[in-house]
């Protein structure tokens, strides 16, 4: 099975306090810790496990700047066979539709049976997989948390829906799936694994190679435009307990007791 996994380099929200820059045009990007989007990492692990069961290759692909190469290399160290970086200054500022269009052009220059994306990324939209599938006229399923390969033409997928329930579907290949966290346990990548793939070439493709009209992507082609970044004002927020840890524990215990938190 030829599997393509779309990955994205993002600031790690578990490791960073995200702040807005002075004029609100961007977040403060100095000193941010970047990593592969968590959902995408599960998607790559799933692709590797499917390949190991039924054969084939796993290609990881990213739309991003040169720095995204490190993310592709990390996923290759996990076990992906190939990487492709879609990089061009004209891609900058693309909206979801623009990104999906760039990926579509790359998909059409390859031959894939299955495309996986993460269920969502840092902006929480969860839109690329569904858009890409519709552009390709392939079927799509989102929030997938189990995959079973039935034969060369069909797979069975579970979707995570509300309340911990699961919706089972049969879906024809080729198709696009967005992968939910928890579908597997992504393997650890050590420094040695990264070294092993350090010399592998990652081809870079831009708008010319992909045959994409520059005006159709980037900020110029975007229908949806981000105007600014700001820190939300959400009323009072919590009453913050301050003081030494012992003082805090003292206050906290009193509060819990008075609110019925000790039985």
């Amino acid at each position: 099975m030829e599997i393509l996994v779309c990955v994205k380099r993002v600031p790690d929200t578990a490791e960073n306090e995200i702040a807005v820059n002075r004029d609100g045009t961007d977040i403060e990007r100095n000193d941010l810790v970047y990593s592969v989007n968590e959902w995408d990492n599960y998607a790559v692990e799933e692709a590797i496990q499917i390949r190991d069961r039924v054969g084939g290759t796993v290609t990881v692909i990213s739309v991003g700047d040169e720095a995204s190469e490190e993310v592709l290399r990390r996923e290759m160290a996990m076990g992906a066979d190939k990487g492709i970086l879609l990089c061009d200054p004209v891609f900058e500022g693309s909206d979801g539709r623009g990104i999906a269009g760039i990926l579509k052009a790359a998909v059409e220059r390859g031959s894939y049976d299955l495309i996986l994306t993460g269920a969502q990324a840092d902006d929480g939209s969860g839109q690329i997989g569904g858009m890409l599938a519709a552009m390709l006229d392939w079927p799509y399923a989102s929030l997938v948390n189990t995959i079973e390969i039935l034969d060369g033409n069909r797979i069975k997928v579970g979707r995570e829906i509300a309340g911990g329930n699961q919706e089972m579907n049969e879906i024809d290949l080729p198709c696009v799936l967005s992968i939910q966290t928890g579908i597997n346990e992504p393997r650890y990548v050590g420094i040695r694994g990264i070294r092993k793939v350090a010399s592998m070439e990652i081809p870079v493709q831009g708008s010319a190679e992909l045959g994409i009209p520059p005006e159709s992507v980037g900020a110029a082609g975007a229908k949806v435009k981000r105007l600014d970044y700001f820190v939300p004002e959400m009323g009072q927020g919590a009453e913050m307990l301050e003081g030494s840890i012992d003082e805090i524990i003292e206050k906290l215990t009193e509060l819990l007791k008075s609110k019925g938190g000790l039985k």
Partner: protein
Amino acid sequence: MADTLFAYILHTDGKVDDTAFELISAAKKIVPGTLPTAVIFGSGGSLDTACNQLSSQYPQVWKIDHPALAYPNAEVIRGLLVRLLPENGLMLIPHEHFGMDLAPGLSIKSDAAYIPDVVHIQGLQDGILTVVREEFNGQISTHVACDISKGAVVTLRAGAFQPVEARSETGRILDKTDTAIQGDLPGGNRRFLELVEAPVGDVDITKSDILISVGRGIEEEENLEMVHALAKAMGGDVSCSRPIVDAKWLEKSRQVGTSGQTVKPKVYLALGISGSFQHMGGVKGAPFVVAVNKNPKAPIFQSADVGVVADILELIPKLTEKVQEVKG
């Protein structure tokens, strides 16, 4: 805009989802005074029951009734919506698991703009809709603008908009089945098989008055022991956020959130939980929420009553000791 504004209705077993009435207030923020048309897919008696419920709030309801629509399959419904909606239609959809399945592809197939997971609507001016979205797990918000004059698909976060009250007049229910189906059903390359119910766990956290809920901040599986010890001292149960279940450290039945359990305790102690909207979406009944997190910017502090900026690994053993002391 009354004839171009539409709301996608979620329903189960004849009961309309709460989001149906939230979409109306979102629509009113886009075009003041304008009510959208409800679009509802389903089959038979449960569909009719849902339509009647809708007609108390919506002036117009479009129903599409077919046995194959008894369970909603986004691939099928997307194709039907493309046939039904006008070119410049504005489709409002709840942003949850079905909306995420349907909306991105719908925007492509109807050549409309897509604005996902909107939490606030600023307004519409000269064809440009301006909204607020959240990024970076709720740490940062953004204003987003989009020309919707050629149509748009907008998904709205559940709970972000106040549901509207019933109107005095009853709306009309129009059967649009023939317009939508036109002989065949689209989307045959994905077929719904069955629903698998969540396995029942050892503890039913939906019945707990006191929940000690733990998240990524616990760092290691073995550290869960101290959380169990605190729960025992307080007389509560241990619940958790998604990463703990993803790591297989606790059972899925202990996960609080929209994709897990909906809980309604009296006291909710959130330890090392950032507080994504998916997580807090599972905390109902206005409990007293205490949040402990080492990141002072964690979104959980916005929804908590009391907050402590601290390392939970340091705080938990001390709190356990104090609680035991107080209880004697």
